[in-house]
C-alpha cells in the first residue's frame, strides 16, 4: 500500500575501481620499450669479440695445425720425386715445430709465412715436375691460415687502435659541440622573435623553420651540395700542379665552393666546405638548428612576457630585459635545445655522406665509421663503434642533465 521510495544504497558499499590494471598496462607498455632499448644495447655488447688468452688461442689453433700436417702427409705419400719429398718433409717438420712451440706469436707468424711463401713455392715446383699436389697443398695452406687467424686482437682493441676511428671519434665530438653551439647562437634569437612578436607572414616563416625537421636529412645534404657546387657565377681559371711540378690551367665554373677556396687562399688557408670538416659541421648544423629553434620557441612561449614589460617600465631596454630577465629564466630550455642539437648532430649521417663523403681522417665521423665497417662486413667492429657512441651520448646527456639540475633552480 505504501509508496515508500526505494531506500538509498548504503554509502559504504561503493568501491572505486582499482588502479592496478591501469598501472600494469602503463608499466608493461613502457617496460616493453625499455626492454627493447636495453636488448639493443645488450646485442651491441655481445657481438664484438673480446680478446682470448694465449692458452685458449693455442688450443683453438691445435686442430688446424694437426689438419695441415695430415694434408702435408698426404702430399708426401703422393709425391715421388726425391727433391719434392724433402721439401714437403721440411714443411711438415716446421709445422710440427710450430704445434709444439707453445707461443701464440710464433705460431701465427710461422704459419702465415709457411702458407704464403714456402707452400706456394712447393706448389710451383710440383707443377714443374708434373705431379698434381694442388688439392693437398691448398688444403694445408688453408688449415695453416685458419690456425694463424685465431691470433687476432679483440674487436675493441682493433677499433681503439685504428687511427681512422680515433680521428672519427674526435671529429664527432668536436663537430657536434661546435654545431650545437652554433645552433644555440641562432636558435635563441629566432626563438625569441618568433615567440614575442607578431608580424606579417609569421606563419610562412614558421613553416620554413620547420622544413629541416620534416625533410629527410639526405635531401638537406643534396641541397647543400647543389648550393655549393652546382650554382656558378661565371667561370674562373684554376691552376693545377701536377706531380712533376708542371702547372695546368683549366677554366672551371666559379661556384660558391671555388670562391670560398679562393677567398681563404688570400689568408693562406685551404678552407674547403664540400668534402671538408666545415662541411661536416654545416651539414650537422642545418638539421640540428631547426630542432633547437623549436625548443627555444617553446621555452620562450612558456615564459610570461609580463616580467620583461615590468623591466622595461623600470628603465630597461628590450635587449637589457632579454639578457637580465628572460635568458636567465630560459636556461633550462637553452640546455635542452643544446642537448637536442648535440644529439641530433651525433646521429647525423645522410647529409654528411652526400655533402662531404667519407674521407678517413678528414670527414669520417662516427656514424660514417659504423656505416663503413658494416659495409665491409665488420659487424663486430661496427658494434664496438656504436657502443662507444652510446657511451659518449650517455655521458654527455647525463652531464648536461646534472648541470641543469644543480644550476638552474637554486632556490627550489
Amino acid at each position, binding site marked *: 500500500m505504501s509508496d515508500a521510495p526505494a531506500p538509498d544504497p548504503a554509502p559504504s558499499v561503493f568501491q572505486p575501481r582499482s588502479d592496478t590494471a591501469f598501472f600494469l598496462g602503463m608499466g608493461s607498455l613502457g617496460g616493453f620499450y625499455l626492454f627493447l632499448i636495453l636488448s639493443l644495447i645488450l646485442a651491441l655488447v655481445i657481438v664484438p669479440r673480446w680478446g682470448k688468452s694465449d692458452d685458449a688461442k693455442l688450443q683453438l689453433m691445435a686442430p688446424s695445425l694437426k689438419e695441415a700436417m695430415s694434408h702435408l702427409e698426404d702430399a708426401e705419400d703422393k709425391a715421388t720425386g726425391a727433391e719434392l719429398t724433402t721439401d714437403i718433409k721440411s714443411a711438415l717438420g716446421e709445422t710440427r715445430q710450430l704445434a709444439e712451440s707453445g707461443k701464440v706469436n710464433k705460431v701465427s707468424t710461422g704459419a702465415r709465412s709457411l702458407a704464403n711463401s714456402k707452400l706456394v713455392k712447393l706448389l710451383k715446383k710440383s707443377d714443374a715436375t708434373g705431379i698434381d699436389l694442388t688439392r693437398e697443398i691448398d688444403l694445408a695452406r688453408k688449415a695453416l691460415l685458419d690456425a694463424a687467424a685465431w691470433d687476432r686482437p679483440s674487436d675493441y682493441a682493433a677499433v681503439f687502435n685504428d687511427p681512422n676511428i680515433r680521428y672519427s671519434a674526435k671529429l664527432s665530438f668536436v663537430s657536434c659541440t661546435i654545431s650545437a653551439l652554433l645552433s644555440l647562437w641562432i636558435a635563441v634569437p629566432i626563438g625569441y622573435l618568433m615567440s614575442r612578436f607578431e608580424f606579417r607572414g609569421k606563419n610562412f616563416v614558421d613553416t620554413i623553420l620547420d622544413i629541416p625537421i620534416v625533410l629527410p636529412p639526405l635531401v638537406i645534404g643534396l641541397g647543400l651540395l647543389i648550393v655549393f657546387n652546382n650554382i656558378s657565377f661565371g667561370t674562373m681559371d684554376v691552376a693545377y700542379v701536377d706531380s712533376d711540378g708542371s702547372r695546368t690551367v683549366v677554366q672551371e665554373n666559379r661556384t660558391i665552393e671555388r670562391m670560398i677556396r679562393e677567398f681563404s687562399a688570400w689568408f693562406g688557408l685551404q678552407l674547403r666546405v664540400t668534402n671538408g670538416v666545415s662541411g661536416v659541421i654545416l651539414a650537422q648544423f642545418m638539421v640540428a638548428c631547426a630542432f633547437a629553434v623549436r625548443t627555444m620557441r617553446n621555452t620562450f612561449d612558456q615564459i*610570461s612576457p609580463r616580467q620583461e*614589460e*615590468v623591466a622595461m*617600465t623600470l628603465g630597461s631596454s628590450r635587449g637589457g630585459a632579454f639578457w637580465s630577465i628572460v635568458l*636567465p629564466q630560459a636556461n633550462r630550455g637553452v640546455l635542452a635545445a643544446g642537448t637536442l642539437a648535440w644529439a641530433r648532430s651525433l646521429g647525423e649521417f645522410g647529409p654528411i655522406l652526400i655533402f662531404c663523403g667519407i674521407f678517413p681522417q678528414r670527414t669520417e665521423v662516427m656514424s660514417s665509421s659504423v656505416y663503413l665497417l658494416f659495409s665491409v662486413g665488420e659487424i663486430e667492429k661496427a658494434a664496438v663503434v656504436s657502443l662507444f657512441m652510446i657511451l659518449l651520448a650517455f655521458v654527455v646527456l647525463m652531464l648536461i642533465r646534472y648541470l641543469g639540475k644543480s644550476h638552474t633552480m637554486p*632556490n627550489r
Partner: protein
Amino acid sequence: MIRLENLSLRNGSFELDDLCATIPAGSYGILMGRTGCGKTTLLEAICGLRPQVIGGNIWLNNQDVTRLKPAERGIGYVPQDSALFETMTIFENVAFALRLRGWDEAGIKNRVHQLADLIAITPLLERKPFGLSGGEAKRVALARALASSPGVLCLDEPLSALDEETHTEICDLLTEIHREIDVTILHITHSRSEAQRLGETFLRMEDGRLMTDD
C-alpha cells in the same frame, strides 16, 4: 599628473576610442569598470606596453609621452600577477631600476633598505620570489616600482586575490605610500569599497567610454 587627450587604442582586435581623462598631480586615481572592458589595456597603454596608440596623446607630469618608450616615461608598474623577477633575490628585484640608473652600491643599499622598511619586506630581502605569499609578492612589486621614485604609479588590481587580512594590510600600505611619497597613482579595481576607501579622483569605464565620477 596623468592626462589622456582623445586617446584611441588598439590591442589585437580590441579597440578603445576617444578616451579623455585627467588625474591631478599627487592624486590617488581609481579606474573602475567591469571585467573585460579595457581597464588593463588602458593601463598598459599608459605604461607604453603592448597596446598600439592609434590617435590622441598621453601626458604624464606635463610631458607628452605618447611616442616614448616605457623606459623613458618615469612610471612604476605593478601588474596583477606581480611578475617578480624569478631569478633574482628580492633585494635585486627592488634594486633593478637603481642599477639601470647607475647608482653606486652604497646608494642602492640605502635606498632598498629605506623602501623595505616602509613596505615591511626587510626579512625577505635575501630570498627569491618562489614561495612568497600573494601579499608579500605584492609588497615586493610595490617596492620595486617605487625604487626609482617614479612620478606615476600604475597599479593593476593590486588588491585582488588576497585574503581579507592581507587585503586590509595592503590597503593601509597604499594609504601610507600615498601619504609619504609624492606620486600620482592610477589604481584599477572593480571593488567599490576599495575605491571609496582609497580614491580621490574616480574614473569609470563603461561601454568603451571613460567617464569622470565625483
